[in-house]
């Protein structure tokens, strides 16, 4: 079975925007691959004027939130790096026992979410308050900002919102165009099994992920040498 790959547009985000942006993108992807009986849930982003849809499964939510937390901690250790999150959908097939396991994962779709996390030049001396009122978010930082800086931040956020919308449109377009590779829906299965990995621009981690994928797909042991 061929594995369809989709590379999403790179988004420039600040560290406090990571959670919302990733949640939006990852949930949108999984929603289109949760083909079992679901009750969709509309979620409004707090930082952007965007509503996305979740499939409503708690396990999915938990998995995505854990991934995002890991990603954020990774970002804190590796600032100023372009990063990539990969969502891989797979089928579990029982094949002849191999050296490693008798169940193999057959990946049929991969999504690459590209983020460029901007380094925060100014850290607020006090905590930042996010106060929401009638759809307008007021953010208070310890240090007062100049008008220029706030305008720049505002325009950057507007652009990010537009880019995020483009990414969501891209996801919808992709899932519409390519449907043949999606495996059949099994009874009782709500969403297609998936995993989320975080290859980075550094080679070592990326290489390990490739190796892991080879092992799961039942690669020949000689490939390890």
């Amino acid at each position: 079975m061929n594995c369809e790959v989709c590379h999403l547009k790179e988004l420039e985000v600040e560290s406090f925007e990571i959670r919302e942006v990733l949640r939006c993108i990852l949930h949108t992807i999984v929603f289109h691959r949760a083909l079992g009986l679901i009750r969709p849930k509309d979620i409004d982003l707090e930082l952007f004027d965007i509503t996305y849809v979740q499939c409503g499964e708690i396990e999915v939510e938990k998995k995505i939130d854990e991934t995002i937390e890991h990603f954020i901690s990774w970002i804190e250790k590796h600032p100023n790096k372009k990063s990539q999150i990969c969502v891989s959908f797979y089928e579990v097939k029982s094949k002849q026992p191999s050296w490693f396991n008798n169940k193999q994962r057959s990946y049929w779709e991969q999504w690459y979410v590209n983020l460029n996390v901007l380094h925060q030049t100014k850290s607020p001396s006090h905590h930042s308050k996010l106060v929401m009122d009638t759809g307008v978010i007021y953010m208070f930082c310890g240090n007062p900002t100049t008008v220029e800086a706030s305008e720049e931040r505002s325009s950057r956020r507007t652009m990010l919102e537009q880019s995020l919308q483009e990414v969501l449109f891209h996801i919808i377009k992709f899932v519409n165009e390519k449907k043949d590779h999606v495996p059949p829906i099994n009874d009782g299965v709500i969403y297609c099994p998936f995993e989320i990995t975080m290859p980075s621009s550094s080679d070592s981690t990326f290489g390990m992920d490739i190796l892991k994928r080879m092992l799961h797909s039942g690669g020949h042991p000689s490939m390890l040498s």
Partner: protein
Amino acid sequence: MDFPENLPDMGRLEQIVSHFFPKALHIILDSRIPSLQSRVGVRSRDRPNLKKSDKWFNLVMGDRPAALEKLHSWHRNVLDSMIIDIILIHPNHDDETVIERWVVQYENPLIMSPQSSDPRYQKVYKKAIILLRSLHAQTRLLPAYRASRQLSSSLASSSSSGYEMVYKVSSFSDVFSPPVTETMKEFRFTPVEVPPGRLCVSVTYRSDLSDFNLGAHITLPPRIITDYVGSPATDPMRFFPSPGQSFEGASFQGRRRPPLTTERPHSWSSGFQRPPTPNQSFSPQFSPDFFHSSRTDGGYGYGGDSHHQLSPPFSPSGSPSTPRRISVRPGTAPVTIPSSATFNRYVSSSSNFSEPSRNPLPPFSPKSTRRSPSSQDSLPGIALYKSSRSGESPSGGLMNHYPGHKLTKDSKYDSGRFSGLLSSSGSPRFGFSRSPSRLSSQDDLDDPDCSCPFDFDDVDESGLQYSQSLDRRKTSSSISQSLPIGRKSQDAAVGVLVQMLKTAPPLRQDSSTYMASMSGVQREGTESEFSMARSTSDALEELRNYKQLKDLLLSKSKSFGGETRVH
């Protein structure tokens, strides 16, 4: 979806097509027309009586509104296109603009070659599911969704923009006039081949709706407050009116709030800037947009519900960005119940407020109320909390709905004050009965479904200090009527005690001396007002009654394993 086993594939494919239209219609209109949205509380994927129509395409949308059912019954021929227009109309300007046009159709089967498509219904069904998923997601991304939310959120304020969003479903359409089409964009979903034809969905939409001026607040970018002065979490009872505006608004059934001074608006007080209509209750915190972020289930916020004509002090606890809300009845607007910690703050800072409606916080625990027995804030909160609960009977007092708890001994929450609140609210959903027999007969206190803000075990002697007026006759009669020992519940006994204390004439101002008398020490002298008015024997008799009551309570508490501190 469970297809009938004996149905041939072609029959199943026909079913897929015939059910696709109403499902698509439901998804589109559900996201655009608030009146056609399914109730949040009804929708549940795990409900055993989930309708079959809701299971189609594995997408639970909730009960289909009657209007949609009628539309579905109208569209019987699957070969007819279904054209759904989303229109913005302005009644005053006689202006109609189609901002979206959705076209759902089953394309002419003669065009398709039968060999190019896989006739297996499972695969077709899977693709149709994916198509509808993307349709569902797409409806949230288009500008009309925001416009719909803006319009529905402005309903509470009499729709400041004047626009209404309506829909029209037809099987043919007028061609767009050239000026309109220039501003429209088109998106076509990839068709799903359903032999012998294919299902197609497309949308033509206006990408920019700023011309309509539907509402400015949602499109504003975040602003940074450089002179941020506080938050509701730190100073909840403080008003921060809008600048340059003195405001008088009807807040609670015609009751007026004092005019506000011109100060910088607080982050949660943006609603102050909207002048309310004369007969409208002003509740800026309860604008649906206020709960925009906490909305997770597709339901809209509320507005204009008569239960929630609250004055602004009924603020949510904690940070305003995460207002807690508790929906206590389907169909009603949620009521925010602050935590006891916040309640303590409210109670302690109550000096600025004398109106019961301003501090509608329930007395959670006598422990918290004990700190400020002079607070007059808690009962109105109970009133509002209880008025939004379903199935509440208006009978009985507070103890009827708070099982296992004792009433606070703060006798300033007397019924005279409370009834004043009721008359102002105009919603006699419950009453505070002063009749001891009524209180004593309320064994509903054991109802486990009720959450009681009172802790029965926290009856405190400080409450007895409040009994400045004791009516001996009422006391003795009420005891005899309401406390046949061994029959009535402990809670009823406490209620009777409180009632007696409230109705009792004042003894003396020195409460410590009074306490000494209650513990059995004989009072001497004629200093108190009570001793002036009554004889010593009367006092002794009353003391005896109290002792009996105390013994009763102690015996009851021992039997229940609790501990009372009634002295």
